[in-house]
């Protein structure tokens, strides 16, 4: 097994399964001492309105390229043995899983920090757009300044 396929990104319509993804990530590597998993979920509340559904659009090609670049940058900063990003697109509903980030390292510190780093840059650089459906109809979600600040804090480290 080459090192490359331990670091993969995937954009898909289908749901993902944490146990399956985790088992695949750690298979054949007994040097992994820590795995951190982040799962983003669809909430039923945003800006005080009831959200009935969420629709995610992306820029095929650039999305995968951006996610791979973010992962490569994380590998330069931390000692990672494996990583996986799965991001869903299309229509989703409250309670659904949207995104999975798995990071694996010899010790927990690297896996924790790399995982947060990947999510912070995914939110500000990967070309995804969310459209929210409420009782009043659809509306596009606006980018939040706090997400930019979360990504910017890594520049100082």
């Amino acid at each position: 097994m080459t090192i490359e396929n331990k670091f993969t990104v995937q954009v898909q319509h289908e749901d993902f399964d944490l146990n399956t993804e985790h088992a695949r990530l750690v298979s054949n590597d007994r040097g992994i001492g820590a795995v951190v998993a982040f799962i983003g979920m669809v909430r039923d509340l945003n800006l005080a309105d009831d959200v009935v559904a969420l629709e995610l659009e992306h820029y095929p090609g650039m999305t995968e390229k951006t996610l791979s670049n973010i992962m490569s940058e994380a590998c330069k900063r931390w000692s990672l043995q494996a990583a996986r990003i799965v991001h869903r697109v299309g229509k989703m509903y409250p309670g659904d899983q949207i995104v999975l980030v798995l990071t694996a390292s010899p010790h927990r510190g690297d896996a924790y920090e790399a995982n947060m780093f990947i999510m912070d840059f995914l939110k500000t650089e990967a070309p995804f757009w969310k459209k929210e459906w409420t009782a009043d109809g659809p509306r596009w979600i606006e980018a939040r300044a706090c997400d930019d600040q979360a990504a910017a804090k890594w520049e100082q480290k």
Partner: protein
Amino acid sequence: MHLKVLYFAQLRERFGLSEESLVAPDSVITIANLIDHLSLRGGVWHETFAGGSAFRVAMNQDMVALDTTLTDGAEVAIFRPVTGG
């Protein structure tokens, strides 16, 4: 200069267009020049690009700044700030 221009999300809906091939005049050198060129179409184009609302531009699938020089045959994508995750 020949360019393929893509629009996503809010901008795709507002322009009623997801993609176009265009031949830009010689005066269009940078991304900012292209934005000004599109703004001259008036209506929603002018409102979007001259109205101070935030947008991002990617060239050949990399985010770029407005002063970036365009290359012939480039794929340019214009969109509102991203909201994934």
